[in-house]
């Protein structure tokens, strides 16, 4: 499977596409909805799918001595890579973001704190649950799939954001940088990591079942 993953990176992921990961740096824009930067990982994934189709990569993989399940898993790994690179850039710049915002606060959404990363992971997890199995129903159709994924991503993040902004107790504990509530923000981050991991594994497993029935 790792050989296939390397193949994807070398043949279907031109270096220029990694620039999308740099859009995670939008977290340093003062008073900005930081999730927009995370959302650009979806554009990264869309262009990757486009290269897979243009290159007839699935057909090429089918003549290699690999299992179909590995074709799915390597694609899932590429998706995870796109998302994690983007979040890593955001994470590196989270502290400068705090310094750049007046009083450290973001007035149009969650601050660049652990809650933001936890919620972003949950939104990406829901995106993966929708996109990965649906894409592997055919192995090439991605348009509607990505739109549905994007809607899911935005709605998931939006619901959490609203809850945090509208419920004062949550605003106090989850937004901002108060060290007294570090445990609460850490809990959201941990929940995000767990949900992201489990959802992506489940999405991959479901996609494998679907792809086993596809004629290439």
């Amino acid at each position, binding site marked *: 499977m790792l*050989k296939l993953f*390397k*193949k994807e990176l*070398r*043949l279907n992921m031109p270096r220029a596409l990694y620039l999308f990961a740099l859009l995670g740096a939008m977290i340093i824009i003062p008073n900005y909805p930081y999730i927009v930067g995370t959302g650009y990982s979806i554009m990264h994934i869309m262009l990757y799918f486009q290269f897979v189709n*243009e*290159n*007839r*990569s699935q*057909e*090429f993989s*089918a*003549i*290699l*001595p*690999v*299992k*179909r399940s590995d074709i799915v898993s390597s694609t899932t790994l590429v998706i995870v890579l796109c998302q994690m690179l983007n979040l890593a850039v955001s994470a590196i710049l989270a502290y400068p973001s705090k310094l750049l915002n007046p009083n450290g606060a973001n007035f149009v959404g969650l601050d660049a704190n652990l809650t933001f990363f936890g919620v972003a992971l949950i939104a990406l997890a829901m995106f993966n649950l929708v996109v990965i199995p649906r894409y592997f129903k055919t192995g090439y159709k991605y348009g509607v799939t990505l739109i549905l994924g994007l809607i899911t991503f935005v709605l998931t993040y939006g619901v959490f954001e609203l809850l945090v902004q509208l419920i004062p107790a949550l605003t106090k504990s989850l937004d901002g940088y108060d060290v007294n509530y570090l445990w609460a923000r850490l809990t959201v981050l941990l929940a995000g990591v767990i949900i992201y991991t489990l959802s992506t594994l489940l999405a991959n497993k479901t996609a494998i079942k679907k792809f*086993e*029935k*596809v*004629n*290439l």
Partner: protein
Amino acid sequence: MLKVENLCKTFSGFKLDNVSFEIPAGAIVGFIGQNGAGKTTTLKCIMGSVLPDSGKITVMGREIAENETECKKLISFSSGTFEYYRNKKLTDIIAVYKTFFDEWSNEDFARYLKEFNLDVNKRVKELSAGMKVKFALSLAMSHNAKLFIFDEPTSGLDPIARDELLDVFRDIVQQGDKSILFSTHITNDLEKCADYVLFIKNGKILLEEGKDELLESHCLIKGEELTDELKSRVIAFKEHAFGYTALIKRDKIQSSDKFLTEKPTIDDIMIYYNKEVNAKC
């Protein structure tokens, strides 16, 4: 080497119907049939790109469905051309492709590159149709596979390159432990190098015979008047202003028959079986 048993696959408007055949070790088998007869679908089923509804495919005694990765290492497949990764340099593709095969041979690959005059620094989109075929075949022939499956490998090649390729085919099977199954529309290639002919029509295998036996057992007949009795014995016929031409099995010829006979070509056999007046499908 390869055994296909009762392979079935139904698409809307097309059915692969109980396809069964065997490829012995050391043989070159030509797979013929008109467009849409089921050649590519059969080959794709063997490679697992198309999933059969039923049937069993074994390579060197191992069932593909249960040993996909191991079996695919024994098989080398080329779809006749190379239309993948058009913007990539051949060197990039080679570097990735060879990592999947334990028995990849840089020496063999370098030999084919030299023989086919391929420049690995070119991008796929810069190759001519013939060069793409040669690149696909060079990849396919450099990892010590036992069974080579080629889907119309000679269709994009000029006569000289085709002849060279057929020589390479003969070299591959010379040791007796490797086999080639290739589909083609250029039946002239079969006459030059195939040991067996596999003829598929409307998703069913119509003929599976040694090439020489197939040519020996059929006869092209020409005459002026085609009687109903003769019509019932021929496989198919064509009538024209000066009489008729028909394909008949030699054992159906009677001593009292008065017509001219000719040795048929594989093209003739394919064309007349396709008309199938009396052929059982």
